[in-house]
């Protein structure tokens, strides 16, 4: 089989066992300073609570640790290696200045309970980021406490519930479009709401008539992703908001796709009452192999009394402080104040862009998605031809005739030096290929991607087996996930 791409090339990398397999007694990578206080006898202090043995914890040297994790790292794909067209995940460049400023001593070593008078730096960061995010979203107030997007959803729905309770009744259900992220219904269930599905229309948008029919006084809110998971802007958003508001309901916006809107349009201006943001998507904080995230929730004035506590306030003398006296608050959703380290990074990103940069970022993200769409139209089936914003969703309909499903195409893409796009989501598109290039990609990288996708489509016609058994260039071939789930091996044992 010929090597498929200009972009990638096989390279030797190192084998590496589990760290436990390298361990032997006497090796160490640590050194403590001599004690400046008298030594103690743990048995005397702890009695029966003393631990005698640490089991199979490893004993290795520093160079072994460096090599171990460096070798492991080379088995990962990453944004730093190339385009990561994961739809809805917004894998954009993670600026390194963010990492530098988040490690400045006073910020990295700040204790959450240190006195406010020596916490003014952290409080200023929280306040400044809050103000920026309120302006960007067009909302009135915000909490930065939630640790991730799903946690933000939880926080948002808790506020929705508290709001309705303050009006007399919590209401019973939450409307969720069939194209929504799985976290939306899971969150609604956690807040004690029943989930009612809302069908999309033939253009992939909320069916406004269906919404009118389903909307009543039992509905607490609609959870809407906009642009939705097809990358389509809900053009009748004003009608949607009106329908909800007319019956006392609220509009919740899942801000996972805010990358398509920043600087161009503000959710607060089109009727959204509450929304979460993912700082690890739109605001460039690193995904880190699956976290940490940060999921601020921005709200309209009517929800302000219900914000999690504490909130940051300015005292008469101009200094900043935490206000815990919030009798209508939904409470706390996390200890301390949230993933502060992510606030620092998101604010650094906002500073690096400013108003012009933020707007251009959005424009470039939408331009890139449309460029990819144009390049692949006709090669892959486009189930909804509604205009795309920051991402485009194709289906595997054409290739599936030869037996190549979206996951097969995605796995083959790995051989071409790209991370797969999002597969089989949204659920309303059978065999979906959900592609989001983000603004970070140059035309050159996008051209390589389009070329790779076309080449894979050609392979499906000419040599489908190559695609069906992909990837061929990775350390491991396709892994047996069924056995992994049926007979779980979740830890190493000697």
């Amino acid at each position, binding site marked *: 089989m010929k090597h498929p791409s200009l972009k990638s090339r096989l390279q030797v990398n190192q084998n590496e066992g589990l760290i436990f397999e390298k361990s032997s007694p006497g090796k160490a990578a640590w050194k403590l300073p001599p004690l400046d206080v008298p030594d103690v006898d743990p048995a005397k202090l702890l009695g029966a609570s003393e631990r005698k043995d640490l089991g199979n914890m490893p004993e290795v040297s520093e160079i072994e640790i460096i090599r171990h994790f460096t070798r492991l790292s080379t088995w990962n794909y990453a944004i730093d290696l190339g385009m990561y067209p994961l739809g809805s995940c917004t894998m954009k460049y993670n600026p390194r200045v963010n990492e530098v400023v988040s490690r400045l001593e006073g910020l990295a070593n700040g204790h959450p309970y240190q006195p406010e008078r020596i916490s003014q730096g952290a409080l200023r960061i929280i306040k400044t980021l809050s103000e920026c995010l309120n302006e960007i979203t067009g909302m009135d107030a915000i909490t930065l406490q939630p640790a991730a997007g799903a946690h933000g959803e939880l926080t948002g729905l808790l506020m929705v519930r508290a709001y309705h309770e303050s009006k007399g009744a919590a209401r019973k259900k939450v409307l969720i479009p069939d194209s929504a992220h799985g976290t939306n219904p899971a969150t609604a269930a956690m807040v004690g709401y029943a989930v009612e599905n809302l069908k999309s229309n033939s253009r992939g948008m909320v069916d406004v008539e269906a919404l009118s029919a389903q909307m009543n006084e039992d509905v607490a809110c609609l959870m809407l992703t906009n642009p939705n998971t097809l990358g389509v802007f809900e053009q009748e958003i*004003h009608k949607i908001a009106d329908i909800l508001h007319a019956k006392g309901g609220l509009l919740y916006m899942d801000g996972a796709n805010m990358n398509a809107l920043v600087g161009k349009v503000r959710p607060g201006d089109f009727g959204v009452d509450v929304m979460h943001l993912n700082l690890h998507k739109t605001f460039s904080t690193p995904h880190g192999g699956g976290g940490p995230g940060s999921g601020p929730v921005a709200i309209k004035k009517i929800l302000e009394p219900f914000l999690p506590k504490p909130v940051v306030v300015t005292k008469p003398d101009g200094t900043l402080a935490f206000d815990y006296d919030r009798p209508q608050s939904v409470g706390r959703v996390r200890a*301390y104040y949230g993933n502060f380290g*992510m606030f620092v990074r998101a604010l650094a990103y906002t500073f690096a862009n400013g108003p012009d940069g933020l707007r251009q970022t959005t424009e470039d993200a939408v331009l890139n998605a449309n460029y990819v769409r144009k390049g692949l139209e006709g090669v892959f089936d486009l189930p909804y031809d509604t205009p795309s914003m920051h991402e485009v969703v194709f289906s595997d309909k054409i290739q599936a005739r030869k037996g190549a499903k979206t996951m097969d195409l995605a796995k083959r893409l790995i051989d071409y030096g790209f991370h797969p796009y999002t597969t089989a989501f949204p659920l309303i598109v059978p065999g979906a290929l959900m592609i989001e290039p983000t603004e970070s990609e140059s035309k050159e990288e996008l051209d390589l991607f389009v070329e790779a996708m076309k080449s894979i489509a050609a392979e499906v016609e000419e040599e489908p087996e190559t695609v069906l058994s992909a990837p061929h260039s990775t350390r491991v071939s396709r892994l047996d996930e069924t056995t992994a789930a049926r007979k779980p091996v979740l830890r190493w044992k000697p």
Partner: protein
Amino acid sequence: MLKAIGARSIADLFSPIPAEYRLGRDLKVPRQMAESEIVDWFRERSRENGDGYASFLGAGAYFHYRPVIIDSLISRGEFLTAYTPYQAEISQGTLQAIFEFQTMICELTGMEVANASMYDGSTGAAEAVMMAVRLTGRHSVLVARSVHPEYREVLATYAHHQGLPIAEVPFGKDGRIDVKALENSITPDTACVLIQSPNFFGTIEDAEAIAEIAHKNGAMLAVSIAEAVSLGIVEPPRKADIIAMEAQSFGVPLGFGGPYCGVIATKEKYVRQMPGRLTGQTVDSNGKRGFVLTLATREQHIRREKATSNICTNQALVALMVNIFMTIYGKVGLRELAKQNLAKTAYAAGQFGKHASILFDSSPRFNEFVLETSEDPYAINGRVLGHKIVGGLPLKKFYPELGNASLWCCTELTTRSAIDTAVGVVAESENSIRVDQGESFEEESEVMP
């Protein structure tokens, strides 16, 4: 590119957005800044944020030394800028690291399985309680008042809409859960008892005895561990059914409260009700060892509203810091590290105890103790701060019943000279209370809820 697309302008691409909502102006955010300006701005904030202060604060967030190779390794782009390892073939690095993390957490907690991480200790504890509710089919919860107050607040928020009554069990004179009160409040509907050990006061609970009471009544025992370093020298609660840990102590910066790293560990038989991502070992089509995310049928992207939790993102990069830290200290170093914490704390408690009273002194403790002074601890702390030292956490906002008590923490980084200086201030205060009481530290008293 516009030409290729067939658009005349960028504005064309945004035509799906109704004109009346389009933003016709610049966002009112600070102007674009150069990298040097950004660094300067944050440096200024860093200086305003307690830079250069020694500290006796713990209370769920601990200042331990972070070996430098943690940041060298996690800064590699292949870890830092990778996505969740759903595509196993190109994520083996992250997956194997998580597998090792899960293994070490099991070794340290004495549990059989551990997940790939939760947001933090507080949400982890709340999720552990929800898990016990699902496993037992029971609908009420007992929580020790000696559990971190903010963890209890988070649990109350989570439980509020699940129809889960939560009752608090008080602590006794020894600073541990009042066993008699526990026995009296446990009912056939109690799903679990949640304790923390070492608890919020630094006192080690008798988890075995509590487990016996819980199990005798058909309830589970969930144990929160907020100070991970304690596991180096304190026997883990092996009789617990679920352990919810905060692993921040293992190489994660204090970072003004986050991001941290929660973990849930439990028995193998309960794994299908455990929330959060899990990595499992398997083989590829050539029989070669490899790792995948597994048991996803518990999770929201498959089960939607029937999932075990709505959790999606976890704390992978932070878990990697924890992983590297555990690997560095390992079997011998973790114990030695923990022992230094014990020694510093024993010294400090002994010195403070000469001038003021140490509460709960009869119980074993790890690296925190409660000091009761005659004077308001905010006032004392105000003077300690003059020495560029942050004193212990005044407890009256969380525990009004404890009056002028404050919670002090020592780690391996606490110096004898800082201890002696703080002891000196307390001694002076005890010797001349009348003189100092006139001063007002009202501002400080607003710090805590």
